[in-house]
């Protein structure tokens, strides 16, 4: 089970994690916002993306990073969007490729 040991931010404003397998990954905030897996952004049944990327401000900022149980983080953004729950394994993939 992949879990974070540390949460940090980089000089250029990315959100970073140190994981319990020793790796470190980071990802810029807008990419995280665009990848939001919540039911407002992704159709629950078809998996089709509902979020229109152009509606997300280019300078969207992250406000809070909160643990959800033992498997995910909830991210709240300053565009008012806070319903996304990002499971750790998905988050690691996402931040690795970004």
């Amino acid at each position: 089970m992949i879990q974070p040991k540390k949460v940090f931010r980089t000089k250029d404003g990315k959100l970073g994690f140190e994981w319990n397998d020793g790796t470190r990954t980071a990802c810029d905030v807008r990419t995280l916002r665009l990848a939001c897996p919540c039911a407002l952004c992704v159709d629950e049944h078809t998996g089709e993306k509902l979020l229109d990327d152009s509606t997300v401000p280019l300078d969207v900022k992250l406000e809070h990073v909160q643990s959800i149980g033992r498997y995910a983080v909830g991210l709240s953004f300053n565009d008012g969007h806070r319903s996304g729950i990002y499971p750790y394994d998905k988050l690691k993939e996402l931040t690795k490729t970004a």
Partner: protein
Amino acid sequence: MQLNEQNILSALRAVQDPDLHKNIVELNFVQNLKIEDTKVSFDLRLTTPACPIRDRFKDQCIAIVKSLGASEVNVTFTAQGRVGGEDNSAAKAPQQSYIGEVAHVVAVASGKGGVGKSTVTANLAMALSLSGARVGILDADIYGPSMGLMFGIDKAPQVFEDNTIAPVEAKGGISIVSMCMFADSDKATIWRGPMVSQMIQHFIHHVRWGKLDYLLVDFPPGTGDIQLTLTQNCPMAGAVVVTTPQEVALADCRKGLAMFDNVGVPVIGVVENMSYFICDECGKHHNIFPAGGGQKIAEKWGVPLIGKVPLEPAVAGCGDEGTPAVLRYPNSESAKVFMDCAETVVRTLAVFETEGDGVLKNFNYDFEQLPVEDV
């Protein structure tokens, strides 16, 4: 017609919410209305992000506003109840929470109902308490609470001015909170999911548990709303999954195991209840169900089988009489199994703790306050 806020809002009153029987303006769904020349944009604040008819709302709204002369209409969905918001939601922890004083939260669950979760919870709790730990039970089965009966509780918990609850101290010094303390036993709790989720959150965060070594959470059967709320709101140290030996129960047990896997809760082990029957006349062991079911599932999923609890007529009545078997018949075979299980739980949790050393468990960071580092 002129395009102004008043006109648009009064036109939008034509859009009805079929569930709430009110129009969307009356329900305050329409927010952030902006008009620039003939371009109109607004938010629709839905009651849930997964509102099944949101697209219908959107189409209706766009059609209506366009008929007023707008050239472009932008509708954005927002939802009430979200992570970290002011308003409470399934994923948000209330400001003040007492769950932090509990050292280990342990889930006792099963995929299927009727396998004896509550019996196992009550006896494990009693066994832990007898071995010297401070123990509590959160009965999360809102629809069918049974802890009141298992411990013979007949008093209501104290509720303080700030709406926090003091748990009822039952036999063996175990602190218990259960829905049965708040509802009439002859009346059914007929609630939809969100109501139950709120009650569960209230139980998790606003009960003054005090310093506990172990809090056992008696899960309701299944893998739905309540189970998710529970696993999202308190960081579970581990889970015990209860099953009976026959195939139907095992199939559901697998789902229970898979659920904990998905939400990152390590499984301590499987307890097989009603493993065999001990005859009260001759003491012979009879396998009523095909033997070895719990063993099979444990091997297949790589989780240990931590106990096989027999059916003993004398012991089986304990639950109904309000004293867990471990306390009433400490020398029975069942009681010994429960004592062993409790020991395994304690040891396994200690192992989990060292394995998970340095892993963040419960956090809520302000992004701006995070340390700046390189990747």
